[in-house]
């Protein structure tokens, strides 16, 4: 039996904008989404903002009902058996929400331990243990409002683990963290998987998914567009070369022209502090470099490099093609 199952799940929201003559507008957040996660697996759900990652997690954590389809967590239906699912899961989301800011870290953990039914005789030991795991020992009596975002995020992880749930849902847990904080958190997550937890992780940081996840699914516009190991997704574009052009003055008409060039499969422009990074995927390899430079007339080019595709490139290709 899979630890987590999502079988043909769809979810529709109805928005009613305006004041007079209000019409219902249907917004499909998920369309016939299916995937499964095996016990002890760390599975990544990747996708851009608004793709349906959080909606999927909300359904699995009993907070949202699906419009159609069936979900299962350890064999229980989150829609009709929430009381059976809730003791088995931990839910951690990114950002600095989800805590009582005016209370200390220990008071927060103490309250959530009680509502998550941690036995009284184990409560203090469990809190101390988790404060050690997330590196907050010595700061537990300080108010959460004085904590950095990274400290709050680590406190979130401790909260989600209080009742030692076998299944964990981590919804963009490293969002907004500095690189050191994010790396520490990834180490914590890897440790949890080693301890046998089943983890569903959502993220849009591809290096994070590549480092942590055994399998991933790419979701965009509420549909799964690819599923497999990070290596298999990369293999899907193994015949391509990624040409990175650091430049300034790249406008949309030029990007459209680049997309139409022979051998170009995708073009993405990332805005950086003072420059732009143009990522061109090509099936022609490095021989496309000269024609590309020729096409960048009127643009200041600072550097051009060609490299092998990464998981992020595979993701860009999948999301771009969807």
């Amino acid at each position: 039996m899979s630890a987590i199952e999502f079988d043909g799940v769809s979810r529709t929201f109805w928005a009613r904008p305006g004041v007079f003559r209000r019409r219902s507008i249907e917004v499909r957040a998920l369309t016939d989404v299916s995937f499964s996660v095996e016990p002890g697996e760390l599975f990544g759900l990747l996708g851009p903002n608004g793709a349906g990652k959080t909606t999927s997690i909300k359904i699995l954590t009993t907070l949202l009902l699906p419009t159609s389809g069936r979900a299962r967590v350890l064999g229980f239906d989150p829609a009709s058996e929430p009381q059976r699912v809730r003791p088995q899961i931990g839910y951690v989301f990114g950002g600095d929400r989800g805590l009582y800011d005016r209370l200390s870290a220990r008071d927060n953990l103490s309250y959530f331990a009680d509502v998550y039914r941690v036995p009284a005789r184990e409560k203090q030991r469990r809190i101390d243990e988790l404060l050690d795991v997330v590196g907050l020992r010595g700061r537990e009596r300080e108010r959460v409002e004085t904590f950095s975002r990274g400290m709050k995020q680590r406190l979130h992880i401790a909260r989600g683990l209080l009742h030692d749930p076998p299944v964990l849902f981590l919804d963009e847990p490293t969002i907004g963290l500095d690189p050191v904080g994010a790396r520490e958190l990834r180490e914590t997550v890897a440790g949890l998987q080693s301890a046998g937890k089943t983890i569903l992780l959502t993220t849009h940081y591809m290096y994070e998914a590549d480092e942590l996840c055994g399998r991933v699914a790419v979701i965009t516009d509420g549909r799964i567009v690819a599923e497999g190991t990070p290596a298999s997704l990369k293999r899907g574009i193994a015949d391509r070369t990624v040409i990175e052009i650091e430049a300034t003055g790249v406008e949309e008409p030029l990007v459209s022209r680049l997309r139409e060039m022979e051998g170009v499969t995708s073009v993405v422009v990332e805005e950086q502090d003072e420059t732009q990074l143009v990522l061109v995927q090509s099936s022609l390899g490095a021989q496309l470099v000269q024609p590309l430079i020729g096409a960048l007339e009127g643009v200041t080019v600072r550097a051009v490099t060609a490299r092998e595709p990464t998981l992020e490139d595979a993701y860009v290709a999948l999301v771009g093609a969807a």
Partner: protein
Amino acid sequence: MIRAFATGLRVHLVHLLRSPFDLVAILIWPVIFASIAYYLIGTEGSTRVLFVASLGAAMMMLWSQVIVGSGFSLDQQRNQGTLELLVAAPVPLVIVIAPVMIASAAFGIYGLLVTLAWGRFAFGIPIAIDHPVAFVVAAVAAIVSIGLLGLIAASLFVLSRAASYFGVALQYPVYLASGLMLPLALLPAWIDPLSWVLAPTWGYRALTHASGGGGAWRDIGMCVLLSAVYLVLALPCLAWFERVARDRGTLKLS
């Protein structure tokens, strides 16, 4: 579950007490209500009448704290992301929501003390309580019963953030129907049965009778009875509105 309830009560009370804005707001509120009552009654009123008026002002503040304060408190939990975590907890929803309501009501004790102190120092009204034990029990019974009355409205607050404004609209009708603002004898007779099912009516009477004249225990008993009725009504309401909130996806501010 009792532990979760007790910890929740302490946590929400501490959270309220650490908000300078709430502490100041709750200071101003009963002082204004009590001052209006004192000036309406005037210096011809006996100190006893003025004292009872101050109890009415304190009860008004207590009800407002429950029906408005707790609504905004749940909204704050929706904004800060804790409402979802509480709903997703294995304990029944009533165990996590009731402490929010009762903590808001208990915060009203602070308002009661402020009102009595204001009357004493600003208007020279002596704090005369004939039956201190009954007075304390009456205060606790009033807090619990008014908090549980708020629990029925809380199911609406869980469903929608706009419901907080419904709480604002419910303030004055209950002030009037409970006899907190005007004696019930001045109001139409059809309001009487309505007043019997409202906890503020009996909480106010219990405090008034405990402070002088006696006979508070019958009113305290009514507070206990109504608490049980409110709890029985609130349980299915909370379950139903939780289901609707999960269907509509309104547990999170988005």
